[in-house]
C-alpha cells in the first residue's frame, strides 16, 4: 500500500442512501472504501446507476435532498477529519458534466469566476477580476478578455468546459473532482480537454478524481482506476494492470463491451504519409 503521507484522502466505509420512491430507503453506495494517492489521476468507471456520481457528490457534500451519508472514517493527509467534515468541506472543487446547465445563463463568465475568486481567496473585486483573467490564461483560452465578457451560451462547448475548469481552479483545490467532464463534447475537443487536465495536474500538483463511463478516457489520462458496480467498488488498481489483467468478471465485461478504437486499423502515421503522397 502507499505510505500514509502520500495519501491525500482516504475514505473508509462510506454508505449513502436515498429515500425510495415507494417508501423505504435505497442504498446507492455500500461500504465504499478507497484511497486517493496525492498527485495521481484516479478514474472511477461504471455504468449508469453504479453510484459513481453519488460518490463524488458525497465527497463534496452536495447529495440530493433526503440523502444520508455515513462513513466510518475519513483521513485527509493522514489526519482524521470524520467529525469536522460536517462543518468544514474538503479542499476540493468539482467540474460538472454539462457546462451549459452549470453556469447561470444570466451572468457573464467573468462574473462567475470573480465570485469564486472573491469567496475562496478572500480578495476584493478588482483583484478578483485579475485572478479570473489569470485562471482563463491557465486553461489556455487564447483571448481571455473577450471570454470574460461573454455569457455562457455564447461560448462553444469546449470553451465553456475550459471556463468551468478555470472556475474550479480559482477555489484553489488540492483535489479536483470531475464528473464526466468530456461526455458532452466531440471527440476532438474531448482530447484537448483531457490533455489540459493532465497538464494542469502536473503544473499545480493537483490530485484528480475523474468519473466517466468511457474506458478510453481512463486509458488516456488516469494513473489508477476504480471500477464500480451497484454501489460498490469491485476492482481497483493501476490502469495498466487492471486493463491488461482484469480480475473481476465485471471489469472484464466492461472491457469486452468497449468497442475497439479505430486506432488499430487506421495507423495515423502511415495514413498521413499516404495522404501527403496522394
Amino acid at each position, binding site marked *: 500500500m502507499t505510505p500514509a503521507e502520500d495519501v491525500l484522502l482516504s475514505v473508509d466505509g462510506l454508505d449513502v442512501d436515498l429515500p425510495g420512491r415507494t417508501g423505504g430507503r435505497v442504498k446507492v453506495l455500500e461500504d465504499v472504501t478507497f484511497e486517493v494517492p496525492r498527485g495521481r489521476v484516479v478514474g472511477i468507471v461504471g*455504468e449508469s446507476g453504479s453510484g459513481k456520481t453519488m460518490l463524488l457528490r458525497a465527497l463534496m457534500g452536495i447529495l440530493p435532498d433526503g440523502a444520508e451519508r455515513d462513513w466510518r472514517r475519513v483521513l485527509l493527509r493522514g489526519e482524521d477529519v470524520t467529525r469536522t467534515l460536517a462543518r468544514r468541506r474538503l479542499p476540493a472543487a468539482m467540474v460538472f458534466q454539462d457546462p451549459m446547465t452549470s453556469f447561470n445563463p444570466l451572468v457573464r463568465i467573468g462574473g462567475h469566476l470573480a465570485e469564486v475568486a472573491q469567496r475562496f481567496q478572500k480578495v476584493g473585486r478588482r483583484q478578483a477580476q485579475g485572478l479570473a483573467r489569470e485562471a482563463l490564461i491557465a486553461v489556455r483560452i487564447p483571448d481571455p478578455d473577450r471570454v470574460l465578457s461573454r455569457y455562457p451560451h455564447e461560448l462553444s462547448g469546449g470553451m465553456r468546459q475550459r471556463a468551468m475548469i478555470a472556475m474550479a481552479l480559482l477555489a484553489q483545490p488540492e483535489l479536483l473532482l470531475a464528473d464526466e467532464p468530456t461526455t458532452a463534447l466531440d471527440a476532438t475537443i474531448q*482530447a484537448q480537454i483531457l490533455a*489540459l487536465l493532465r*497538464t494542469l495536474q502536473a503544473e499545480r500538483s493537483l490530485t484528480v478524481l475523474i468519473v466517466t463511463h468511457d474506458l*478510453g*478516457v481512463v486509458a488516456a489520462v488516469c494513473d489508477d482506476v476504480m471500477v464500480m458496480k451497484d454501489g460498490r467498488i469491485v476492482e481497483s488498481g493501476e*490502469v495498466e494492470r487492471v486493463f491488461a489483467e482484469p480480475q473481476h468478471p465485471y471489469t472484464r465485461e466492461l472491457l469486452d463491451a468497449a468497442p*475497439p*478504437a479505430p*486506432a488499430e486499423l487506421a495507423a495515423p502515421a502511415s495514413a498521413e504519409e499516404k495522404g501527403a503522397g496522394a
Partner: protein
Amino acid sequence: MSDLRQAPGRDGGPAPDLVEVRGLVKTFPQRNAWGRTTGTTRAVDGVDLSIRRGETLAVVGESGSGKSTLGRCILQMDEPTSGTVTYEGVDLTALPRARRAPYHRSMQVIFQDPFSSLNPHRTALQNVMEPLAVLAPDSDPRARAIEALAAVGIDGDAVNRRPRAFSGGQRQRIVIARAIAVRPGFVVCDEPLSALDMSIQAQVTDLLLRLQRELALTYLFISHDLSVVREIAIRTAVMNRGRIVELGPTAQVFAAPQHPYTRHLLDAALSTDPVQARRRLQRISTRPEPVGLEPDGTALAEVAPGHFVLR
C-alpha cells in the same frame, strides 16, 4: 459538377437509389439580441447524396457540422432552402404539404434521447399507437403496435407501463418500435445510441441490424461515434461545416482516410489500450487545429471506386 451528380448513384447496381439528395442547402438566419437578422448560417451547404435501397449510410462529423440538419431536411422536418430530395423517384420538395402524408409513413426517425422523445403521460403501447392512428388508420393500430413492441422485445404486461418505468435501453426500444410500427422503408437514426451505456449500445445495435434484415429497411445513421459507425455502416459520409468532405465504403474510409478532416476525426478517438491512448493524447494536445473551411470551388472527386473526396 455535373458528372459528380450522377457518379454516386451510377454504380448503385440494379436496385435504384431509394433517396436522392441534390444540391441541398439549408440556411438559418443569425439574429442579434433584439431579434434582427444579422446574417445567415449555412448549416448544410450544397450536399449531393444517394442512399441505396437496403444499405446503412452513416453520416459522421462533429457537432455543428450539419449532419442532423441534413437528416431533418431529408425527412422534410425542416424545409430545405434550396435543392431537392427525391424518395423513390418522387421529388418531395416540390410536393404540396397535403400530399406528403404517405411519405411521412415511409420515412421515420429515431432520436438520440429516449427520455424526451416519448410522451411521459402515455403508456408504451399508446406511444407506439399514436403514429399508427394518424398514418395508417385503416389497419388495426393496437394489434400492429403490440406486434412492433414484441419485435423489439417488449411484450406482455410491460406494454401498459409508462416510459419512466423503463430503463434507457428499453425506452430506446420503444422509440424504435414506434418508428417501425408504420412499416417504413427508410429510417433516419439520429445518434440513437449516444445516450446509452456501452453494453446496452451493443444490444440496441444488434436490434437495429436484425430489424433491417427482417423488414428490409434503409438507414441513414447519423453519429459522432466512429466505433459504432464502423460496426454497422456499409458506406460512410464525413461532414464538416455543412459539406460532405469524404464518402466511401466504411472499411476504406477508416483504413485509408483521404481528407485531412477525416484523419483528424479518426485520430481523436481514444482506445482502451493505455499506452496507445496516452500517445495519442500527447500528439493531439501538441497539434494545432488543422481544419478550417473548405476553399470554394472544391468538388468531390473519385479516388477509388465508390470512394469520393472533396478536393
